[in-house]
């Protein structure tokens, strides 16, 4: 039944797509399109995005298609030279396009589309909007691009004897958070689905025994919709959420704990929410060719799940892009990416004046390394197309001048990168290379001695497939890999609003974003590249993840970018209404100057009180590898500060002040 609702919805969406000229078997003009594409708030880059007959089309073997499918948990089956392109959605729905046919088959229903896939210069193109709709994605057109998001497509109520079950069906693997507001008058459960749009109506009457009603609302920017289910429950009712499939979820409401389990037969559906039929859907059933009768998943081309790092069980094809391997597709016109190698083990041998860390790999890898200048001195190595087996961990070395060594799966999208960070208390010389007589062993020697004065600040290297001699010694003083990039972190967001001033209706997460966006504009005007950890009201990390992962996700954005600076923007608050003014926090002693310079400039530009710089072990300024500060921009709890924070002009001044501080500290971005 749920599948049927989802399927009808797809039919409706497809029919709403404007019908244009139908072209079959004729030369098709294709012009390159530079639009940006976002999927669930993440930018997906396409190399073969083009415009044809007024519609965006995309090359079928574009890595962007593979990345899009990976994000929504869908799979593609396509043999070059054949007429069929078959997609399997995460909920099992089969979608079949046929080359030259203006019809798409969605499970057993055939639906007309303006034009189907076509070959041009030997490349197969598929219409992007038709594909997105068939995949059950919400499509938002903005100036310069498209944003796609999966949707909640059905919400159904089932009433049992002692409980109410709400079935939720989506078009992509569900991620959610739940919260409970125990207000005595209106206790409410809220289930939040970040990154999901709503196509399942707006309210459901829940009868009044366990709960009164369920309200579905969409929040967030169109590029990153967030759907909230608020369930107005009776007092004493408990809720359990059971994942019943990757795209489906059952919420059970019951008074007794033992009724919350999903082990009994449910009653017949009594209420169903459906989309509002705004106009009669003009379905045009056509004689669609039947696709290949059986569709088997590609055994050798697994589509990894999104972050965090997937379990890597097969190093032959588990590449981040999810592209089929040449063996799987029979032929591959594009160069295949290098295979993923695993780091199976990490060991240490200490001597009096050096420590050797040995990484045991399953094959050859390439790496790059960077070293920060005094007084920071950190040294890090990024190993490309590598998967760390086991959790991120600290590696203990006995060298007195090394405070810590950490290794982690730093990145999984678009590529797998393992990062090893050495944090010394004074400059140390580091050598990286293959270990003689030990194939697939990468050795990292940390010496107690300082590096030579003329040593470079960064470099690259490879661990060859079979190596007999060590790589030339590398060591140095370094800088960031992107010295013109600054990462700004708007504090809190999504389910964590931060501090709130009820009287003025001020929410910390909204203010931090407003300041960060202004700061971004200021810095870009000055020639910097800027990355925001979030550009809407949502969590940066996995919305189902815990709060620790959320903080680490912000650090990951910065660390993955190789930025020069990390600036975390917050608003302060206190139990007492007394405290006011700005405070800039730093953790590493080497960041004190950056904090002081930004504090001075921001206090001067904004006119807010100067509460000084402070050293505190805040997570995001500890776990980012570049110079990092966290600015608490005035107090929401102070009447004077809150009055200022309610004024957009004050937010402008704060942003201008922080930008000035960055200029004072750096002297501006490096010349191109």
């Amino acid at each position, binding site marked *: 039944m749920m599948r049927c609702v989802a399927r009808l919805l797809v039919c409706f969406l497809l029919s709403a797509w404007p019908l244009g000229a139908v072209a079959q078997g004729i030369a098709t003009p294709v012009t390159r399109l530079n639009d940006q594409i976002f999927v669930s708030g993440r930018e997906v880059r396409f190399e073969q995005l083009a415009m044809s007959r007024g519609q965006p089309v995309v090359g079928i073997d574009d890595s962007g298609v593979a990345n899009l499918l990976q994000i929504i948990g869908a799979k593609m089956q396509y043999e070059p030279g054949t007429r069929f392109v078959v997609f399997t959605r995460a909920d099992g729905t089969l979608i079949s396009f046929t080359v030259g046919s203006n019809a798409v088959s969605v499970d057993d229903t055939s639906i007309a589309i303006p034009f189907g896939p076509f070959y041009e210069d030997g490349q197969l193109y598929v219409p992007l909007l038709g594909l997105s709709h068939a995949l059950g994605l919400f499509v938002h057109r903005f100036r310069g691009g498209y944003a796609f998001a999966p949707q909640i497509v059905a919400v159904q109520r089932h009433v049992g004897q002692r409980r109410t079950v709400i079935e939720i069906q989506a078009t992509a693997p569900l991620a959610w958070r739940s919260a409970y507001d125990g207000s005595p008058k209106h206790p409410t459960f809220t289930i939040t689905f970040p990154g999901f749009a709503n196509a399942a109506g707006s309210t459901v009457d829940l009868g009044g025994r366990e709960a009164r009603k369920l309200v579905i609302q969409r929040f967030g920017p169109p590029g990153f919709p967030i759907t909230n289910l608020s369930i107005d429950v009776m007092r004493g009712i408990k809720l359990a959420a059971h994942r019943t499939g990757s795209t489906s979820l059952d919420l059970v409401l019951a008074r007794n704990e033992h009724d919350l389990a999903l082990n009994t037969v449910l009653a017949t559906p009594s209420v169903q929410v459906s989309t509002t039929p705004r106009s009669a859907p003009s379905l045009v059933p056509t004689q669609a060719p039947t696709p290949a009768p059986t569709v088997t998943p590609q055994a050798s081309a697994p589509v990894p799940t999104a972050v965090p790092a997937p379990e890597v069980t097969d190093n032959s094809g588990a590449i981040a892009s999810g592209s089929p391997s040449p063996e799987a597709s029979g032929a591959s016109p594009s160069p295949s990416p290098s295979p993923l190698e695993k780091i199976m083990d990490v060991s240490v041998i200490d001597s009096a004046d050096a420590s050797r860390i040995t990484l045991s790999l399953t094959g050859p890898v390439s790496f790059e390394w960077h070293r920060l200048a005094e007084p920071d001195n950190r040294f890090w190595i990024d190993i490309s197309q590598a998967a760390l087996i086991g959790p991120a961990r600290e590696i203990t070395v006995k060298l007195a001048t090394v405070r810590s060594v950490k290794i982690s799966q730093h990145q999984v999208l678009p590529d797998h990168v393992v990062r090893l960070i050495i944090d010394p208390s004074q400059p140390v010389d580091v050598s990286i290379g293959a270990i003689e007589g030990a194939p697939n062993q990468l050795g990292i020697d940390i010496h107690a001695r300082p590096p030579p004065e003329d040593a470079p600040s960064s470099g690259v290297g490879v661990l060859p497939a079979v190596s007999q001699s060590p790589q030339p010694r590398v060591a140095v003083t370094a800088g960031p890999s992107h010295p013109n990039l600054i990462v700004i972190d708007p504090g*809190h967001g999504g389910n*964590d*609003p*931060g*501090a*709130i001033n009820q009287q003025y209706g001020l929410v910390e997460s909204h203010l931090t974003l407003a300041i960060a966006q202004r700061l971004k504009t200021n810095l870009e005007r000055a020639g910097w590249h800027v990355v925001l950890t979030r550009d809407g009201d949502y969590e940066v990390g996995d919305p189902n993840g*815990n*709060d*620790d992962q959320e*903080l*680490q996700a912000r650090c990951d954005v910065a660390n993955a970018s190789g930025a020069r600076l990390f600036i975390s923007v*917050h*608003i*302060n*608050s*206190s*139990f*007492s209404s*007394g*405290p*006011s003014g700005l*405070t800039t*926090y730093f953790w590493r002693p080497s960041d004190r100057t950056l904090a002081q310079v930004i504090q001075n400039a921001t206090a001067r530009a904004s006119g807010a009180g100067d*509460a000084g710089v*402070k*050293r*505190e*072990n*805040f*997570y*995001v300024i*500890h776990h980012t590898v570049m110079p990092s500060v*966290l600015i*608490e921009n005035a*107090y*929401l*709890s102070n009447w004077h500060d809150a009055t200022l924070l309610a004024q957009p002009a004050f937010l402008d001044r704060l942003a201008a002040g922080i930008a000035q501080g960055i200029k004072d500290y750096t002297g501006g971005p490096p010349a191109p």
Partner: protein
Amino acid sequence: MLAVIAIFAGCSRHVTVAPSPHLTVFYCKAGSDDLVRVPFTVDSKLTGSALATYALSQMLAGPSVGRDSIVLFPAGTEATVSTEGDVATVDLNGSIVRSFQGGAGDEVGMFKSLTYTLTGLPGIKSVQVLVAGQRKAALPGGHLEIDEPLTRDTFAQ
């Protein structure tokens, strides 16, 4: 838990003899790093986890005077403390672990006063904070790193 705190709070009112070395509870002034020392006299029989529990109960209750300018734990905060070796382990529960919506300044003040108070007890050098029984990097919605034991050095400027 509240009952336990109430019992120990009750004990303090009946102390008449054997004043042990005074217990000092540190409160933090809001918006600053300044600590306010409040001395208590406790029964000398109160030692180890029981003494730590008493100190914690006074921290949660807040000072009896001058409360307006003192960082208080959010209403509804529950906490238990146990000591082993030189580490006091404080397990936070209640409203504070659902979502901390105070500012970074108060958060630091809270943990600083907790650390100073408990490390002022005989033999205690550090404080391990647990959030609903588990080690966490920070409070939900929080800023300060608390996965490692906190010491007075943690708050050194």
